[in-house]
């Protein structure tokens, strides 16, 4: 097939939108930490734009999307973008340049790494985080992406559906975040209930706004063409985000007050949950999926806090559990009437699909948790993972980066 200028425009702008999500995550997280750690938090996401941006074109794309090796990994044929050119790929996205498909996928890899960092803010050593990120991209993200989206990947073959990354991006990031946080241990003072007040909630809202905006590229862009399916995924995405934001706000209200932080978090939870489903379910199904996401993530967050686990910014609760709910909900609500390349779900009488979805979820949970744990331990015994107690007290901005966020005449 030949290149469509409309489809290409859509994939390129979608790639740019997904790129913007990484600064969006930086701000979303950066506003939630204490003033002394904001640059460190921003830096962790921003550095992913550099590091993962490079590794992806060097070998990451090939590991994920290269010719299949036993359903598990891609061959290194595309190393250094060899053979990835201005013509469409023979197997992926047949109406856009192979390079466009490659870079769209690259933006997903970058943000997935950035997402994890929410678990480890305010105490991780920056050098260790970089090392971990490189290892994780190679040994966790790339294989999982291949399983689910690679031509011949075993989960794809099995028929597990993941439209835009519910398993690859969100479960992967959320579960790995949990494992990494467990290895790293809690922040000083966390267990004593020392308040760790977010230092800038408008920054969080700005981050959430950019995420919502960028997510249209993430989900509707995953149609890989510009037409009915992209429009359907777009509407489903917005519906789920709206439903989840609203539901979280109501939950907040039932317990206390409707907060900005909660509403923004709810929006993100809704966007996460619709991700695997966006192009497989009818747009109105965004509403139950979003509402469910808010409820699931809300109580998972509560559970996490009760267990005194310092998975600091709730990557597991929002992305891990939101992604899990979304992947399962895909098995419930999917319909071939929406996307003939998809499948019917439980509501259309196909109980099998739900099983496939669960298999996919289980596989990714186990693999991501286990592999991340091993990698984290590896980094721990080599570089060490935490800054010193004194550095933690002083704040990572000064201790690790030699900067402070808000300079001035006096402070």
């Amino acid at each position, binding site marked *: 097939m030949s290149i469509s200028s409309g489809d290409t425009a859509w994939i390129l702008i979608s790639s740019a939108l997904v790129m913007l999500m990484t600064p969006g995550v930086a701000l979303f997280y950066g506003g939630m930490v204490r003033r002394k750690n904001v640059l460190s938090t921003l830096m962790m996401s921003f550095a992913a734009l550099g590091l993962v941006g490079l590794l992806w074109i060097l070998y990451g794309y090939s590991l994920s999307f290269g010719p299949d090796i036993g359903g598990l990994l891609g061959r290194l044929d595309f190393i250094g973008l060899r053979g990835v050119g201005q013509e469409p790929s023979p197997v992926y996205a047949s109406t856009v340049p192979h390079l466009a498909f490659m870079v769209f996928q690259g933006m997903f890899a970058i943000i997935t790494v950035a997402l994890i960092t929410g678990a480890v803010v305010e105490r991780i050593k920056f050098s260790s985080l970089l090392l971990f990120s490189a290892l994780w991209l190679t040994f966790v993200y790339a294989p999982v992406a291949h399983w689910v989206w690679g031509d011949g990947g075993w989960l794809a073959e099995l028929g597990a559906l993941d439209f835009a990354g519910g398993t690859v991006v969100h479960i992967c990031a959320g579960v790995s975040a949990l494992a990494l946080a467990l290895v790293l241990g809690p922040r000083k003072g966390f267990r004593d*209930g020392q*308040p*760790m*007040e*977010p230092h800038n909630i408008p920054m969080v809202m700005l981050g959430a706004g950019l995420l919502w905006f960028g997510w249209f590229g993430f989900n509707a862009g995953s149609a890989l063409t510009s037409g009915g399916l992209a429009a359907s995924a777009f509407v489903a995405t917005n519906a789920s985000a709206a439903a989840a934001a609203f539901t979280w706000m109501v939950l*907040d209200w039932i*317990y*206390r*007050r409707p*907060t900005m*932080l*909660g509403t923004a*978090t709810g929006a993100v939870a809704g966007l996460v949950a619709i991700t695997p489903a966006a192009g497989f379910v009818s747009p109105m199904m965004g509403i139950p999926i979003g509402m469910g996401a808010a409820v699931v993530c*809300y109580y998972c*967050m*509560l559970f996490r*806090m009760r267990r005194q686990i310092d998975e600091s910014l*709730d990557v597991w609760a929002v992305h891990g559990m939101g992604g899990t709910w979304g992947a399962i909900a895909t098995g419930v609500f999917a319909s071939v009437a929406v996307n003939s390349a998809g499948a019917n779900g439980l509501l259309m009488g196909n109980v099998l699909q739900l099983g496939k979805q669960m298999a996919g979820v289980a596989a990714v949970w186990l693999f991501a948790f286990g592999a991340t744990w091993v990698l984290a331990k590896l980094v721990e015994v080599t570089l060490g993972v935490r800054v010193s107690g004194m550095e933690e007290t002083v704040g990572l901005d000064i201790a690790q980066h030699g900067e402070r966020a808000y300079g001035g005449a006096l402070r």
Partner: protein
Amino acid sequence: MKKIEAIIREEKLEPVRKALEDSGYFGMTISEVSGRGRQKGIPLQWRVGEYRVDFLPKIKIELVVLDDDVPQTVHAINASARTGDMGDGKIFILPVENAIRVRTGEAGEKAI
């Protein structure tokens, strides 16, 4: 000369300022401080959780006046800053040995 240091509620700055002005005291220095006392902190929310902020925002007013003016200023502040609830704040009176007006170099009572 005495220095009056009043710690008051943020929202009472306006009335106190006015009360002092009405009593003829215009010059003063204020700053943002945080205080803790009988008034318990406020609970704030953190996504699904809650945390208590111990130190609440207060305004500190610093005002140097002549000895004779102390009762009047204290009264003005006291009356205008009161709500009757915990957290209304405190007024402290400290001795001042001298004051200098930078612009002119004048010292002592003339400097105030």
